């Protein structure tokens, strides 16, 4: 079930938002197939009646008051941005 073709890798690369060249797609298809083959052995484990373990932290998520505890740090928030203007992040045009 796990041999990946170039088209599947192209789709995964797009979902991951990573540009991959044509040659890169073939190489990745090989690498990803190797990894999927490796994890294939999990299929033989009997997990009947077993709940997925999403966290080992045996905690109920704590609640806090819904109130503002932080803010007014516009300069700090923007300080590492590649491009800013008038206190905003600048993105390429998304609406025609």
């Amino acid at each position, binding site marked *: 079930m796990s041999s990946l073709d170039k088209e599947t890798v192209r789709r995964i690369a797009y979902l991951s938002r*990573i540009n991959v060249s044509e040659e890169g797609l073939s190489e990745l298809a090989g690498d*990803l197939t190797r*990894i999927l083959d490796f994890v294939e052995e*999990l299929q033989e484990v009997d997990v009947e009646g077993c709940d*997925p373990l999403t*966290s080992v*932290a045996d905690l109920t998520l704590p609640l806090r008051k819904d109130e503002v505890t932080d803010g007014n740090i516009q300069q700090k928030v923007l300080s*590492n*941005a590649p491009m800013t203007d008038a206190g905003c992040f600048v993105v390429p045009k*998304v609406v025609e």
Partner: protein
Amino acid sequence: MTDLTNLTLAEARDGLAKGDYTSVELTEAHLKSMEAHRNLNAYITETPEKAIEMAKASDAKRAKGEAGKMEGLPIAIKDLFCTEGVQTTAASHILEGFKPEYESTVTRNLFDNGAVMLGKANLDEFAMGSSNTSSYYGNVINPWKGKDGKDLVPGGSSGGSAAAVAANMALAATGTDTGGSIRQPASYCGIVGLKPTYGRCSRWGIVAFASSLDQAGPMTKTVRDAAIMLGSMAGHDAKDSTSAPMAVPDFEAALTGDIRGMKIGIPKEYRVDGMPEEISKLWDDGVAMLRYAGAEVVDVSLPHTKYALGTYYIVAPAEASSNLARYDGLRYGQRVMDEGDSLDDMYMKSRAAGFGKEVQRRIMIGTYVLSAGYYDAYYNKALKVRRRIYEDFANAFGSVDTILAPTAPSAAFAIGENEGDPVKMYLNDVFTVPASLAGLPGLSLPTGLSSEGLPLGLQLIGKPFDEETVLRVGGVLESAANFTAKPSGLEG
């Protein structure tokens, strides 16, 4: 005066308290050592000015009688911890130049307790790797050398931290462990590494890799040093909802040296086919030492051990693909964009240029196992197997106090070896990944040398939040093994 960089953390702490030297002197000695061993590439960013400034402040604090637990002790910080105003890269090109506006909780705790930062230690990119060969800032070289003199990997992902401690370029270092990233490099570099229980240290401000597994811990020269440093790093933090609201015990007080009557579990499934003779012997020797010290050795079974790596290489990439979605070229980090590019073009170009090969592979594997049609077959299945692995440990700990096993299946290998096949590299984590999946504390300490004269480590795995037992048994094993060898590659 003896070379101050030969001191352990505990010795330096006591020497500072007695006034034998100042933090400035201690820090200067380490800065000199860093300069002398720059060829090892253990640091991505050295912060000598900040170090001296912190050391001066520490000496002034001590003069006022306000010494903290780590007062005046110079350490390296893995470059995965956000440090305010100091470049934090996660060894990735995509974060080159990123200067956090805030301090991670763990480094905040250490600095509040008086620790001095020498610099930011190298690592595998985004902590993904077992050899420190995936850093954008170059390979770290292990200070130890084999008989043929080739450059060896320090292990990973906390390879810079391990090399810095082993080469006396820091009294200790912070590491992080997701599947073995503290313990395996500790073993390869002949030092002590402790991955605490998941939840013991806050993850806030640590660049996230796999959030259900990531945990910070100390990398030190001795077990006592690990106890001291963990006591400073740990503690509940409201900013990390998975950090445990528990008091931090006095870990150093756990080092009683007495393990009489304690039960040590030996998991038979870890004796894998093809285990090298010297690893097998190292393990047997460790068992004999603990028995001689009065512990009872008990066979235990962890039947799902063989599925741990497969589980890990689904769960960790899945979480990584989600965590690393934040590197979008907008809010921080590298942006690659040409005239007329769409938002998607910019995302795709920035991420292609910013992420290295292994990181791209893991993001894509993670994206695939979470994608429609494959979620149940891969991701959900892995989470169920993860529960089986968790239950294995819970069952074993019904009859033993701690578990003893090798840390890694080999000694450090040559740079370039195990490249080209991602799966072969993953096999280095075979003994460390199970405890990570179960969230358990694991301590690696050096107990012997390979036929090549390279350090080999054993690992103690404990019950949740029972670092004290792991440290106590580790202390006894450390005394019995009396590992005194030093890296041969340090001269010149």
